[in-house]
């Protein structure tokens, strides 16, 4: 503890600094005076005595300094000096300081915002106790286009039982956008249907009321209860504690609110915002067409596990392997090749199926962010370089007066550090506010939250960015300025720049680098934007305009089959009577919606070999006007008619891909297949419909078929209405009709087809990518313009005298302009070349993120390069033109 006491003494000295100096001075003065007195007493003259005393004492100033330094605060003193001096310099060059701070604020702001996003989505652990024990469990599947699957409910239960010694398995199946009615008005919410041990395994607590109880809701038909998320509770009920016990309707079903989730826990997904949680039985009924409870083919459960203390991922993996093999043997058809992967929960983000595309996506944007920062750095380096050359005289003189180079260097770097620190603070503030803005915006129809990941990692990231900027942008100019030889500099008369050719070369390189960086950014942005355009223009097989979708489930009111059909029939009639209605139809699912049925297809006369599974094909149950309403063209055969009734022969309409896939080169009309077994019953194909998009926009053409609702009953249906009236205005009218028919208001969801397509399975991710990339591209372009303009105009000013001489010797203004432009153009061309190569390399990683455009799309590359060269040449041209107008007389007199 000795050093602690020492430190305390040192700090005490630092605090009483002024007193210390006064004391020391007095002490030394006394010493000198006493010595002088002694000498006088031994017979010296007063003057001699004083001199002798001084001689014996030594150099007072240096001794005082050394006494001071002994306390070890020298660095602090220098720092305060440098900082104080630095602030004076910054204050003197307010304009330059402002530009640097602004540039850096943009660079650091963009970076922290992006990193905050990535941090929140990928790096932060779940806000639960001992989050490192949480592992994600996914079923590895070669068959799925997305590489991984969730669990079916029976599989989930089996794994939970059989791996209990090493891991508590829990999971959820999310129901998106259920209609929610409370206190007389409705909205939609995203409900996580959770296993009964979900919350206890996570270790989260309620803010109010209770969570799901042990064993609750694991069998269909239990009373429906709901736990609200904190945010939803605040937003919808204003944080009213009386909400507990309230009766509400969710997904058309009566439910009781039993609790509110604690504030910190916002769902197991880092991207999706949950509005509420409910036991599985509240979300899934026995009657539900999806067969959630019993089918081993419906993989709706996203499953996590809390490893018991001390259990490693590898140990857990081997246990799951054992159980997987056991189940594969037990259920040879459905669980063949079952393979469960146990992984760090963070690796499964944002959802376990995403096949890590998101990691590539965020990696790309972190790189783009870094590129923006690099551009900002080069700009700052340029400005500092210009300033350093101006300060060379000052530095040379200070060096001549005995200033050590290291000290001068430190001083220059302190100045840079100060400016960049200011810029960094501004940048972090900007990034934080962007982040805050993003996280506090509740996207009305998409349950997504963004950019809430502002923690120490982001600050460290920003700090590293700032220090990197300060050193990379500040060191070289500082070295140059302090390297100056006093003799050369002072002999140069007025001209400030002693760097000569070498310095121009560095500036030129920086300018080329800027053009290259900004070209890369713009190409990436261009590709994303073109991809978005392509997606938006993509043929999705139907016309999404002027369509309203209303999803209903009257079975929740215990309607019989006949009552349900009757309900829909009268609803259709009533809606058709509304003004402006063109076509009304019913379907079991909506393209890019979440309730898509998948059925095994057994082609007649082609039995499935034993041990193999019949191929699964997605399908929809629709009524006769469906193809009219969605404007899906029937290219062969006929659409459904009213004659395709419950008692009529079973019929189906298949799409082009299905026709090609199952009956290549044949006429599919009249061919038959079964949904049950090789032995039938068989369904006859009566028509072929055009291909479209069914699950996600980016999917490849895939087989799909339609069967009549009359022949394949589902209670949950979506009423689709095409009208000449804007669908937003139509919605309340339709809702009114429904409530008139059934006071319990069985609406699950009501939204326009356009809104529905803007969701996570639709355009959302493309729009997000395009707008992020475009923002970065514009930022890069802005920085490049400022940079190029700065370099060229500085070069022009530096060369004023030379240009004056040239003009005096007869060079025409046009030649001067050509001279400056040629140099600018060379640099821009070099930059473009490097930028094209860089962009080509970077965009290799993007192929999975782009739709309808190749990552090396020549049109994007060329048009962006042309645009950038035009803009940068313009940025060269303006200062060059100014130089052209130099009056030779003025130029020659210019120092």
């Amino acid at each position: 503890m000795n050093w602690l006491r020492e430190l305390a003494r040192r700090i005490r000295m630092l605090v009483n600094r002024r007193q210390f100096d006064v004391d020391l001075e007095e002490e030394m003065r006394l010493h000198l005076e006493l010595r002088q007195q002694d000498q006088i007493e031994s017979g010296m003259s007063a003057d001699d005595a004083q001199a002798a005393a001084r001689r014996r004492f030594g150099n007072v100033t240096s001794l005082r300094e050394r006494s001071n330094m002994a306390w070890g605060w020298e660095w602090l003193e220098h720092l305060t000096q440098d900082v104080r001096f630095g602030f004076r310099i910054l204050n003197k060059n307010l304009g330059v300081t402002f530009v640097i701070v602004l540039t850096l604020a943009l660079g650091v702001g963009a970076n922290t915002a992006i990193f905050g996003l990535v941090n929140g989505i990928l790096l932060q652990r779940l806000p639960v106790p001992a989050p490192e024990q949480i592992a994600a469990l996914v079923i590895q599947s070669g068959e799925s286009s997305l590489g991984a699957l969730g669990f079916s409910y029976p599989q989930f239960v089996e794994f939970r039982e059989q791996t209990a010694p090493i891991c508590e398995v829990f999971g959820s199946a999310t129901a998106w956008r259920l209609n929610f009615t409370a206190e007389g008005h409705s909205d939609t919410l995203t409900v996580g249907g959770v296993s009964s041990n979900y919350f206890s395994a996570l270790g989260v607590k309620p803010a109010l009321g209770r969570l799901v109880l042990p064993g609750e809701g694991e069998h269909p038909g239990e009373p429906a209860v709901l736990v609200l998320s904190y945010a939803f509770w605040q937003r919808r009920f204003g944080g009213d504690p009386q909400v507990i016990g309230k009766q509400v309707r969710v997904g058309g079903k009566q439910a009781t609110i039993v609790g509110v989730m604690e504030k910190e826990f916002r769902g197991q997904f880092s991207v999706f915002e949950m509005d509420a949680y409910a036991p599985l039985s509240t979300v899934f009924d026995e009657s539900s067409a999806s067969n959630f409870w019993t089918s081993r083919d419906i993989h709706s459960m996203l499953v996590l596990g809390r490893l018991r203390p001390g259990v490693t991922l590898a140990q857990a993996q081997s246990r799951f392997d054992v159980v997987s093999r056991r189940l594969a043997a037990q259920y040879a058809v459905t669980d063949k090749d079952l393979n469960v992967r146990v992984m760090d929960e963070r690796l499964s983000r944002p959802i376990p199926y995403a096949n890590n595309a998101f990691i590539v996506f965020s990696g790309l944007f972190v790189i783009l962010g870094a590129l923006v920062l690099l551009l900002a750095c080069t700009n700052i380096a340029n400005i500092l370089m210009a300033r350093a050359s101006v300060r060379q005289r000052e530095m040379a003189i200070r060096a001549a007066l005995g200033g050590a180079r290291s000290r001068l260097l430190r001083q220059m770097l302190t100045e840079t550090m100060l400016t960049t620190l200011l810029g960094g603070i501004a940048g972090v503030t900007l990034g934080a506010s962007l982040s805050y803005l993003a996280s506090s915006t509740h996207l009305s129809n998409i349950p997504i939250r963004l950019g809430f990941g502002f923690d120490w990692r982001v600050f460290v990231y920003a700090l590293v960015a700032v220090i990197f900027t300060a050193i990379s942008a500040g060191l070289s100019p500082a070295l140059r300025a302090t390297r100056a030889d006093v003799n050369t500099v002072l002999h140069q008369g007025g001209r400030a720049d002693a760097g000569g050719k070498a310095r121009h070369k560095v500036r030129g390189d920086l300018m080329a680098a800027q053009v290259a960086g900004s070209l890369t950014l713009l190409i990436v942005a261009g590709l994303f934007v073109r991809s978005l355009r392509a997606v938006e223009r993509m043929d999705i097989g139907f016309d999404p305009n002027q369509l309203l979708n209303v999803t209903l489930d009257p079975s929740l009111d215990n309607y019989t089959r006949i009552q349900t059909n009757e309900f829909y029939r009268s609803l259709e009639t009533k809606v058709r009577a509304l003004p402006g209605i063109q076509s009304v139809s019913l379907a079991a699912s909506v393209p890019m919606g979440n309730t898509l049925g998948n059925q095994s297809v057994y082609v007649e006369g082609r039995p499935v070999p034993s041990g193999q599974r019949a191929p699964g094909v997605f399908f929809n149950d629709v009524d006769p006007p469906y193809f009219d309403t969605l404007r899906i063209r029937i290219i062969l055969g006929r659409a459904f008619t009213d004659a395709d009734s419950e008692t009529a022969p079973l019929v189906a309409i298949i799409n082009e891909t299905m026709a090609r896939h199952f009956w290549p080169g044949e006429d599919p009309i009249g061919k038959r297949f079964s949904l049950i077994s090789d032995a039938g019953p068989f369904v006859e194909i009566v028509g072929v419909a055009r291909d479209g998009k069914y699950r996600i926009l980016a999917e490849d053409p895939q087989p799909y078929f339609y069967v009549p609702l009359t022949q394949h009953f589902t209670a949950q249906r979506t009423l689709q209405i095409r009208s000449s009236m804007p669908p937003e205005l139509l919605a309340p009218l339709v809702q009114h009709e429904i409530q008139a028919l059934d006071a319990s208001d069985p609406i699950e969801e009501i939204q326009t087809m356009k809104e529905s397509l803007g969701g996570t399975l639709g355009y959302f991710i493309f729009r997000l990518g395009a707008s992020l990339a475009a923002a970065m591209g514009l930022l890069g372009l802005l920085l490049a313009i400022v940079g190029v303009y700065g370099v060229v105009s500085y070069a022009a000013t530096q060369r004023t005298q030379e240009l004056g001489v040239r003009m005096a010797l007869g060079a025409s203004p046009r030649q001067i302009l050509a001279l400056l432009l040629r140099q600018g153009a060379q640099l821009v061309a070099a930059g473009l070349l490097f930028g094209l190569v860089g962009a080509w390399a970077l965009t290799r990683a993007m192929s999975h993120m782009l739709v309808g455009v190749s990552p090396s799309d020549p049109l994007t590359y060329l048009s962006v390069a042309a645009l950038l060269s035009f803009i940068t040449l313009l940025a060269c041209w303006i200062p060059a033109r100014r130089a052209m107008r130099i009056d030779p007389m003025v130029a020659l007199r210019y120092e």
Partner: protein
Amino acid sequence: MVRSLDLHRDEIIPGTLYLLILKTLARSGELHGYEIANSIQRISEDVLQVEEGSLYPALQRMLIKGWVTAKWGTTAGNRRARYYQLTAAGRKQLAVEMSQFERVIGAITRVIEAV
């Protein structure tokens, strides 16, 4: 020398200044800077001519180490002066410095006598 790291390079006999100051204070109790310088000089019969000013940086380091404490008092001539006094730690340090000094001098002596 062993302790040379602790010392400033322009001390006349590296490493001995602390020892001299510690010893002087141990002998005389409370002294101010001038008295310390004078005392060293007088007792060494003017052989040890310390650059008097270098006492002060050395005293600072000893203050930091906690070997001495300082307080203001008045001299016989009624002037304000800072008086230094040995602490317990200082006394311990004196013993350390003494034994080290003796070991080194002993070694040097043996080397010289062996010739």
